[in-house]
């Protein structure tokens, strides 16, 4: 049932080359889930994400020290090894210095006809950040128009937005099955859906998803009674880790907050807004509608913490000291989106998660700094956590015992949240 998705992930280079030959379209590689793929798609090219492989990133060692994460080094290695030669362009959106260095090195070494570094604001919910990113997108669109020698009309963008929205909503529909006990689809299957979505033409992928949506209800149930686990943290693009949890140990990965799975599929672009100005609509989707990654901030997050339903149970009880109370006429803008901790907690509760594995790509600063807070947040609602450092090779032997011991101690959780507060969150 999932073999077509798995084939795309397994033979990603072959698939990209075949796609290029079949469609006659250019293939643009991208490094981060914040790249607005819709604009590339509207220009007539196919965006495909560059993910890691299990190969040791040896070639990258001449350009990136080993204390940069292997996620970035593996990407650079593939570029230096000529494995990405099918690409016609390369785009990234700013996430961290590590990915920027991988991008710049690829830019220097691959000699691609077009490369673009989009400055995605580090603060994402202020009018000025949105305005700045809008201007970045206008320039990006203009670049692509010059490159392809044609105008990208608003209708082209709307069409691309519709294609992407349909893909995301189809994935989300299938992901609803992860809430059930036993889940309708496994964690492995969930990851295969999103990873393959990043690696192929979205319209083709949606057709496969629609077929799957028809087939899934009639499939045999997955094993009953296995523990329900959630993954939180750095990008996970090697399903070996999921296989370890699900096949070897026997638990289900029923939820995640990673940019290679749920976070990628969350958040549709507003069709109403796209009707007026598609680029503005994309700014809203990428900065506000999708769940944020730990590299993104609100300048005044602590204001919202004051009214957060998890305020009394989690770690982020930031009081607006020194005055304790917010003045009635506060000039700051309240953040528009919920913080990532709250998002992750809600996901965990919605999916009846019994344990959280906080995955960190070794040397990943954004997730490394968050781990302390993530642990506290989950533990305060009664969900145990395990910190797991991984690299692109996922050395199963080393981590199996730890994961197994952790999963063996899990049991259904009576979430320690005040019933009244519980009313306040959409379960």
């Amino acid at each position, binding site marked *: 049932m999932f073999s077509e998705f798995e084939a795309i992930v397994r033979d990603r280079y072959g698939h990209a080359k075949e796609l290029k030959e079949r469609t006659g379209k250019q293939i643009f590689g991208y490094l981060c889930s914040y790249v607005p793929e819709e604009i590339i798609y509207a220009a007539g090219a196919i965006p495909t994400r560059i993910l890691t492989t299990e190969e040791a990133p040896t070639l990258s060692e001449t350009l990136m020290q080993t204390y940069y994460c292997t996620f970035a080094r593996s990407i650079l290695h593939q570029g230096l090894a000529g494995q990405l030669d099918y690409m016609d362009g390369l785009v990234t959106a700013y996430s*961290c*210095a590590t990915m920027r260095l991988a991008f*710049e090195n690829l830019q220097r070494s691959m000699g691609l006809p077009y*490369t673009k570094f989009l400055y995605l604001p580090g603060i994402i919910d202020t009018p000025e950040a949105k305005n700045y990113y809008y201007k970045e997108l206008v*320039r990006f669109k203009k670049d692509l128009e010059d490159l392809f020698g044609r105008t990208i009309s608003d209708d082209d963008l709307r069409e691309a937005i519709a294609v992407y929205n349909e893909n995301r909503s189809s994935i989300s529909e299938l992901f609803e099955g992860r809430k059930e006990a036993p889940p309708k689809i496994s964690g492995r299957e969930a990851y295969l859906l999103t990873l393959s979505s990043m690696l192929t033409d979205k319209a083709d992928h949606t057709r496969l998803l629609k077929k799957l949506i028809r087939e899934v209800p009639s499939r045999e149930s997955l094993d009953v009674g296995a523990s329900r686990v959630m993954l939180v943290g750095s990008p996970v693009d090697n399903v070996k880790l999921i296989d370890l949890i699900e096949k070897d140990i026997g638990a289900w990965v029923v939820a995640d907050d990673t940019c290679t799975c749920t976070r990628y599929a969350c958040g549709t672009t507003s069709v109403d807004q796209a009707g007026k100005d598609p680029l503005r609509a994309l700014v809203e989707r990428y900065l506000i509608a999708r769940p944020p990654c730990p590299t993104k901030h609100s300048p005044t997050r602590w204001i919202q913490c004051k009214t957060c339903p998890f305020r009394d149970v989690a770690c982020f009880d930031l009081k607006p000291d020194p005055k304790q109370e917010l003045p009635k006429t506060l000039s700051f803008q309240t953040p528009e989106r919920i913080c990532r901790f709250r998002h992750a907690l809600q996901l965990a509760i919605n999916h009846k998660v019994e344990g959280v594995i906080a995955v960190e790509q070794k040397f990943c600063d954004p997730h490394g*700094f968050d*781990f302390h807070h993530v642990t506290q947040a989950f533990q305060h609602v009664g969900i145990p956590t395990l910190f797991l450092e991984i690299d692109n090779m996922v050395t199963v032997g080393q981590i199996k015992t730890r994961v197994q011991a952790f999963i063996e101690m899990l049991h259904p959780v009576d979430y320690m949240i005040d019933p009244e507060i519980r009313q306040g969150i959409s379960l």
Partner: protein
Amino acid sequence: MAKEKKDTGPPLKTWKLLKEVNNAYNIEINQNVTNGKPVIIGTAMVPPQLVNAFDAVFVAGEWYGSICGFTRDVSLAETAESCGFPHELCSYARMTVGSMIQDKGFLGKYPKPMAVMGTEGYCIVQAKWFEALARYHNVPFTVLDIAPVHSGSQKNWGEEAVRDSVEYVVAQLKDCIEFLEWSLDQKVQEEKMINSIITMHRNEVLWDKLMRLWRQKPSPISIRSLFTFENLIVSLPTSRDATKVLEAIIEELEERVEKGIAAIENEQVRLLWQAQPGWYLLNVLRYFESLGATFVASPYLEMWGATYRFELCKEDTPDWFRERRDPTNLDECLWEIAKEIIALEVWPRLDPGIAMMKKIAIESEADGGVWHAVRACKGVSYGELAEMEDIKRDLGLPGFILEGSPADPRDFSEGPSLRQIRVFVEQAKRVKKRREAKRAKMEKQTST
């Protein structure tokens, strides 16, 4: 540490004045733990001109981390690690977080802040580290997002993109003022901000002058001394006391240059230094000196002046971006601050960084370079390997990667490093001899 004979020049007369100013600042921070002006903690990228427009003391986290590193108190980092901050994270951050949790500062107590400020754009740690501090202290936190000018190999969108970046940062600076006014319960003092910027402009010019003097042959000041002077331009750039010290050291060095007095008497090879040092082991630099190697330039130290930064983005920015004017009102202040920090943010980019490194190598007549691979500092280590390779290939200068960490002594292997340093300095001497012989031969051929 190796027992090589110290081979340095006469002591600096300005040292006493420098110590007085640095100590006064250290004591001020310590006193503010219990009373006095409120403390704002932030990254070294937070514009101090902004915080100094209030009656507050600004503590740059990087400076605080470096002092923690200087004390070699590993228990601070271990405390942070025991709370779940991985060892692979920036050692400045781990030291500071540990100092906060233990409530143990280098002069007594940790300076508890009233608000915390981070930045984005240069290095992600400069936001995440301070977010962690703010969470722990339960105090308001904001982030200043420093948009770039897309220099180097990015497509140059010219004036339009640069103006967008400056306007974006100016808008945020206005938000930061509101944030500080509310957090500190004070009003911004326009006059103070204007004076801060004027003083900072002056200090940056003096810092540039100091950097030029450092490159002289023989070099009149050691890199170890400059790392101590660095606090003036990192923590006290808006202070007139810093101006006095900088003026005094410049005068002293000009005299040294005139008389040909070398800081390191045994200057056989001249080297570049990239990145911050391991503050716990400044003696490693003395070891270089004992072998006859003198450091004469460093992009890391140069970036605190104005010349390096604005030179770096010269090709990608319009003239108005690089013109520095003394402001007369708040709007002009914010415009000046925005340009300054955007220019600083240009630094971690491969192409312009490499071009500047080559320029500095040529201008300072360097014979090689040492790149401190600062474990877990992705901002300062950015592109070091590509830089070293390009310098080697294009200028024929040998390079050496010294692995370490700015504040955590556990990340530095002293024995193997010293052996590698000895081998590298010998190599640099040999390469220099070969280059000189080649040059002499060419000159002889030309004359005949």
